[in-house]
């Protein structure tokens, strides 16, 4: 399967009478986007703002971050099973609006959303301080349940991203990159001497407000399965969760998964990147056993030499991580795990809630309990009403001078367990 990803670099976003994209400048009509957003019946009001890198701006409570993409050639459409039909994606040609993001915000579950600072020390901890952000603030109608509100905001974000990406359909990309995965047999013939490596991605799937969708299917209901790595680039996997901001994978991160990027860079040189295996992280222990058994089985069927396994979340998923590791290693396949840590504020506590001697190669994406002070910024998009209540904050978080003392947990993407940020430890 082969996908050409055309990148259209966005240099600026501004509000205008008419929504248009010209010479890298995205003009956005609020009225136009409001119509898109209010097509979701649970949304009462929507407002828009723009946050640019380096500005003294704080955005909170952040729900999801999305990169606009559109299919221009080949089968299917972006966000299959949700925005487009259920055709298999990952081939042909897709355009993406690089350098920008649609950021959805709203207090869905007051203690579970995140913070993005566009400047200051907080900006160093979130990858989304480097994007031009179109912020979409959604308020629900009276009486809307949290899960209906989550769904509505998720749909608003995806619809707006799709609407904006459509503007690029007739343009020529500034840069293009092609990714290709051969079929199993062809791949074996093409790279007979290279180690066969797959990516095992664990998807957050613990339940309501902890969900991920694959082709529109709730990931807790899937058996582990195999994708071509390019399917993810067309939005086959998307975030529906409101879990800890620091280590959940926003939709943007699924579209731009750095593990997939890095494995493609080594593909044909040091490894044969065979497949993308996805599995889940359910609450019910028998589900965990079933999924890890199936994941190890798929790895064996693919005749792999090694896998990279990434986790999403803490606690319950640590058990899935270790089960996957033990069972895949038992098949004679080497594993490298990617996780983050909840090692206490001093970093001295046990980092994971589970462990095993088979887990002898592990990359950390940082300690989510690390305390940082975020100075007061000039402008706030959203509300600070929830800042003392979100995970990683407390009643003393908001200090007299307006600064915030928080754990990294509150910062969107700070300890990304697919390595989308820069933190680690030795």
């Amino acid at each position, binding site marked *: 399967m082969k996908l050409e990803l055309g990148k259209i670099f966005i240099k600026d976003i501004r509000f205008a009478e008419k929504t248009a994209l010209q010479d890298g400048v995205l003009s956005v009509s609020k009225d136009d986007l409001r119509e898109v957003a209010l097509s979701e019946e649970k949304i009462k009001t929507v407002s828009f703002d723009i946050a640019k890198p380096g500005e003294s701006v704080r955005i909170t409570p952040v729900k999801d971050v999305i990169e606009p993409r559109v299919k221009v050639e080949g089968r299917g459409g972006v966000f299959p099973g949700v925005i487009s039909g259920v055709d298999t994606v990952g081939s042909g040609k897709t355009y993406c609006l690089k350098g920008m993001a649609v950021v959805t915000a709203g207090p869905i*579950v*007051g*203690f*579970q959303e995140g913070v993005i600072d566009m400047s200051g020390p907080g900006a160093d901890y979130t990858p989304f301080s480097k994007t031009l952000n179109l912020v979409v603030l959604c308020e629900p109608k009276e009486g809307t349940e*949290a*899960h209906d509100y989550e769904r509505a905001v998720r749909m608003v974000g995806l619809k707006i991203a799709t609407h904006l990406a459509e503007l690029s359909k007739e343009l020529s990309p500034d840069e293009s990159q092609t990714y290709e995965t051969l079929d199993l047999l062809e791949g074996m013939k093409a790279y007979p001497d290279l180690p066969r490596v797959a990516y095992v991605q664990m998807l*957050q799937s*613990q*339940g*309501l*407000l*902890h969900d991920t969708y694959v082709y529109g299917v709730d990931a*807790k209901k899937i058996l582990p399965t195999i994708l071509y790595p390019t399917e993810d680039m067309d939005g086959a996997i998307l975030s529906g*969760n409101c*879990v*800890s901001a620091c280590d*959940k994978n926003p939709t943007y991160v699924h579209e731009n998964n750095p593990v997939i990027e890095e494995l493609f860079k080594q593909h044909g040189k040091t490894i044969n990147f065979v497949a993308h295996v996805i599995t889940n992280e*359910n*609450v*019910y*222990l*028998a*589900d*965990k056993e079933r999924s890890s058994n199936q994941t190890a089985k798929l790895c064996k069927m693919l005749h792999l030499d090694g896998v990279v396994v990434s986790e999403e*979340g*803490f*606690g*319950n998923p*640590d*058990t899935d991580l270790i089960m996957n590791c033990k069972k895949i290693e038992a098949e004679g396949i080497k594993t490298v795990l990617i996780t983050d840590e*909840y*090692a*206490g*504020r001093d970093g001295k*506590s*046990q980092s994971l*809630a*589970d462990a095993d001697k088979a887990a002898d190669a592990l990359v950390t994406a940082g300690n989510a309990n690390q305390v940082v002070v975020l100075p007061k910024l000039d402008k706030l998009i959203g509300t600070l009403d929830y800042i*003392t*209540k979100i*995970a990683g*904050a*407390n*009643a003393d978080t908001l200090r007299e001078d307006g600064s915030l003392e928080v754990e990294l947990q509150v910062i969107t993407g700070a300890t990304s367990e697919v390595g989308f940020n820069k933190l680690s430890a030795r």
Partner: protein
Amino acid sequence: MNSFQIITNNPSLEGELSHRYPEAPIDVSFRKLSFRSVLTAVRDEIHGGAKLLSHPLSGSVKPLETPYKSVLIERRDGADLDLDSLSLIENAIQACDKFIEQDRIHIPELQKDFQLVDRSLILTAVDSLLSDF
């Protein structure tokens, strides 16, 4: 005889469970306990032969960042100690002890959301259990 039980300190669970699954053979044991004490109560049950069916650290809301915890077990009178269950619950208690209790867990207007998240997570475990029948 084996039976299923949810040990919980979440007052919203029993009503919701009986509403959604009026026929479910699951007993809800509501106890006015702290988050950590729910885990130790579950540990006691495991020493009495029970088996864990849901992960004790379910949910992204960390121990002591929420007051509520519900855990699904299978009571097995006279059964041998299940070492996997014991290991999971001991690890969970150890993980719990490294978190600092957050004062936000006492904020009245958050209780409904905390209860909702805990309830919805344990109900996904109940869904899985019932689909096994």
